[in-house]
């Protein structure tokens, strides 16, 4: 068969080929960008997106979360009609599946439920959600996570997701099967009945059939849920793994996180292009009004001061500001002292709660924590909390365990690339009586927890695995750790002092008699003289100990 030669194209032909690309198509091809690189990680990502949404929903509605997560191997019919365990957790891999097996993931919460008409879009459309446009801390932030999991399920097993939701015990439960139309990035849904046996008083249940692989320990679901329990001591989480083993992380606190408030952007760090766009979109009629209304922390006085510095009349309509003027305005903002952003958009875990969560999961001798005041990167308020646990059963000669959290969500992958890990390594732990190889994590019986709470956590990738290296974030983490470090240092010092004291006291019985023996041998003392000498020595030493 002769190969037909492909030929060159003209500009016109090229133009004819130009087409719009749906975001669903884009992510279907680039699913590794969203954390679905391989069967292990895809399972974790799927569970995580569902759990994050469930916790967010419960907290927004003021409900103490109660979650049940199950992972089951899929049984299906073979050609010959026999029931067959396709690939259990330990089953042999099928050709072409890279060792993965087909699993059903189910996440049930006791949250507020979802209104019937919203269900299809939330699960069947990428880039749809309530969290993207607002400046307010929440676990999910992009409106892409759970629908990406649904997309992954559809691509690997061809199965639509199954959503069951009930807004209250008085309301009717609804159940949908939802697929995604790739070309349109739109849901293809079908409502189905909920059998009475499966009805729950309130909440949402997400079920997906995916290609995945469950491995115990390491960077897997069980570890993720354990760490989630550390950062969410108010949640009760039940997990049943593919082998049927069940773990319950009990609630140790009944305090829900403070609800957070949506805020306006803070002027610091807003880029020039964004500033120009905001002016164009503003409903204010004067640039002064624009500054006051569209930003947080800009009072009339501050607005005046900025505009004076920028050389712009207060009364100008924001839409008429030319780019050169915008440039001046931008610089004037940087040079004006403006109050830090409001903090009620953030809901830190809190020092007490964090310590509780940590002590619940680790056996420790000493725990301390520190919460930094909120600050801002690129216009986004954020807040760092840290806790350090010491001693107990932690290994004394290994690098510290570092638990990273972003908006209460544990980060398991990409530790090396993460600002948090870097800040831990950049902290001078030797100042706090801990050993630390140059440029590395401290070594000792340590568990270090760092939580970044922000209206917008800057991840290094859409898979939400590591926090990007902004200087101000590194600095805040370091300061929080320094605060904890100082207290750890005091604790270690104190322990050492107590041990020293005990050691000193024991010296009397251990070594004094030998001075007596030696003097007796050299000076041929009587036994009485020898014992007298020892008693006197005891008095002398007792005196020095007290005076020192």
């Amino acid at each position, binding site marked *: 068969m002769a190969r037909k030669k492909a030929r060159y194209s003209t500009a016109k032909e090229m133009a004819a080929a130009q087409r719009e690309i749906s975001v669903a198509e884009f992510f279907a091809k680039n699913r590794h960008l969203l954390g679905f690189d391989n069967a292990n990680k895809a399972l974790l990502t799927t569970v995580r997106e569902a759990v994050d949404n469930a916790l967010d929903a419960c907290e927004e509605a003021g409900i103490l979360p109660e979650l049940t997560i199950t992972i089951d191997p899929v049984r299906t019919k073979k050609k010959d009609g026999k029931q067959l365990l396709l690939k259990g957790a330990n089953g042999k891999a099928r050709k072409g599946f890279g060792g993965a097996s087909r699993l059903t993931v189910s996440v049930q919460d006791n949250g507020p439920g979802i209104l019937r008409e919203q269900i299809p879009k939330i699960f069947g459309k990428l880039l749809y959600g309530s969290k993207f446009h607002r400046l307010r801390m929440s676990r999910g932030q992009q409106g892409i996570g759970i629908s990406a999991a649904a997309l992954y399920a559809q691509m690997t097993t061809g199965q639509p997701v199954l959503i069951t939701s009930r807004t209250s015990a008085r309301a009717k439960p609804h159940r949908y099967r939802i697929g995604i139309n790739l070309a349109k990035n739109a849901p293809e849904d079908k409502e189905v009945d909920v059998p009475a046996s499966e009805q729950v008083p309130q909440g949402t249940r997400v079920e997906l059939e995916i290609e995945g692989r469950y491995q115990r320990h390491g960077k897997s679901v069980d570890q993720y849920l354990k760490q989630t329990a550390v950062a969410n001591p108010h949640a009760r989480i039940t997990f049943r793994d593919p082998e049927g083993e069940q773990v319950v992380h009990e609630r140790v606190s009944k305090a829900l996180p403070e609800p957070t408030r949506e805020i306006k952007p803070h002027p610091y760090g807003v880029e020039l292009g964004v500033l120009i766009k905001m002016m164009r979109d503003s409903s204010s009629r004067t640039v002064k009004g624009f500054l006051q209304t569209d930003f947080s922390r800009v009072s009339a006085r501050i607005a005046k001061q900025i505009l004076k510095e920028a050389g712009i009349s207060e009364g100008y309509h924001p839409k008429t500001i030319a780019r050169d003027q915008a440039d001046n305005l931008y610089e004037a903002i940087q040079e004006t002292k403006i109050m830090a952003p409001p903090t009620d958009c953030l809901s830190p875990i809190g020092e007490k709660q964090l310590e509780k969560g940590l002590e619940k999961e680790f056996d420790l001798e000493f725990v301390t924590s520190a919460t930094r005041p909120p600050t801002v990167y690129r216009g986004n308020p954020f807040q760092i909390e840290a806790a350090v646990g010491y001693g107990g059963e932690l290994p004394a000669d290994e690098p510290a365990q570092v638990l990273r959290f972003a908006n209460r969500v544990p980060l398991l992958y990409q530790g090396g690339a993460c600002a948090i890990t870097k800040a831990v390594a950049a902290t001078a732990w030797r100042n706090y009586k801990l050993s630390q190889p140059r440029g590395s994590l401290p070594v000792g019986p340590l568990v270090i927890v760092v939580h970044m709470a922000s209206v917008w956590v800057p991840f290094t990738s859409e898979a939400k695995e590591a926090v990007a290296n902004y200087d101000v974030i590194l600095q805040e983490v370091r300061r929080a750790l320094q605060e904890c470090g100082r207290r750890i240092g005091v604790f270690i010092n104190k322990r050492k002092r107590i041990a020293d004291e005990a050691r000193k006291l024991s010296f009397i019985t251990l070594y004094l008699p030998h001075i007596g023996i030696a003097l007796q041998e050299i000076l041929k003392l009587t036994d009485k003289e020898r014992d007298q000498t020892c008693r006197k020595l005891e008095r*002398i030493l007792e005196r*020095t100990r007290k005076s020192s």
Partner: protein
Amino acid sequence: MIAKKRKTARKKTKAKKKKKTAKRKGRVLRDDLVVEQITDVAAEVYETIGALDQPVLILPTRSLSNVSYDKKKGYFEIGKAKVERTLNYNTVKTFAQSLRFMALSKELVEKNDFATKRDAYYQSKNWGDAKFQEQSESDTCMDDIEAMFSVHDVSREELRFYPEDHGGAVAGELVVIDRDPETEEEIEIDCTRFGSGAYTIPSSVEHLRFETRARFVLAIETGGVFQRLNYHKYWRDAKCVIVELGGVPTRATRRFIRRLADSKKIPVYAFTDCDPYAFANIYRTLKVGSGNAAHISRFFSVPQARFLGVTPQDILDHKLMDATHKLQPTDIKRAKDALKNDPFFRANPKWQRAMRQQLKMGVRAEQQAFAKWDLNYIIEKYLPLKLKNVKSFLP
């Protein structure tokens, strides 16, 4: 006086000391003096405790910063800096151990026995909780005691703590007069009468006496050259005593050469490889002692030693360049360190010139490199040539 009461005893002690020094002059037996010294220290400690004061042990600071090199005296000297070990909770363990070692020393002198460092370490195993865990701890404690008593001219060997190893081999025109430890009977050892073998220097040489008509002592670094000179009876023709150093000489070897040279007033010539280790470690230690043991240099150095060779100039004069080896980074570092920090080399411009010359040449040579010309070149050519001009030896 080494021990004293915390504050009050200082003046009284000095007065006492003078009186005792005078008294000692009449004594014959060193052993009695040693026992007296130990007893004095213990008595002072005992009296201080009796007065309910904290007893103190005083010893010279053993660190390079407390070392000076006096060209006239010719050896490293320990300075006046002192450490006061006041008894308190931090020092009580070593305080007890030091006293027990002193008690052991007194017992050894009285029983006319000795203990090596390792023996002493194992003796401590009988001290219950005061025992040493590692020999390094016990060695440090012994070094302290040695330093403490060295101030009063008492050496470690006189305290009856002997080094683990004996000294090097000796042959040549020398009769060593030893005595039987039990009968005190004298034993004459004729070092010309060992054939291809040799006499081994014992680990303590304080009791030896010498008879010799040798014109000099030749201290040789390597066993190979010692063998050759002994086999060919070089010592007979050159009228000398040959001593094998075997690398950095042991205490016994240094003390043996020193006592021999002192008592018979004969010069000592050192014959080593031509490399920074031989200069800065072997020869320097032989002649002036070592920096971290300056408190014992006055016993264990041989200030009358002079350096016969091999010098960097010898490499050129005897055309040995193709039998040399490149200086390694450690050699270069050692030479530079010596030039910069070693008081002995800093005080001797001739040595500085020689070491700079070697650094410039970038090579080192072994004593046996002369074998390139002929196995007996050193006997027939090199040594006779060198000995014609003793004045040219490096100091």
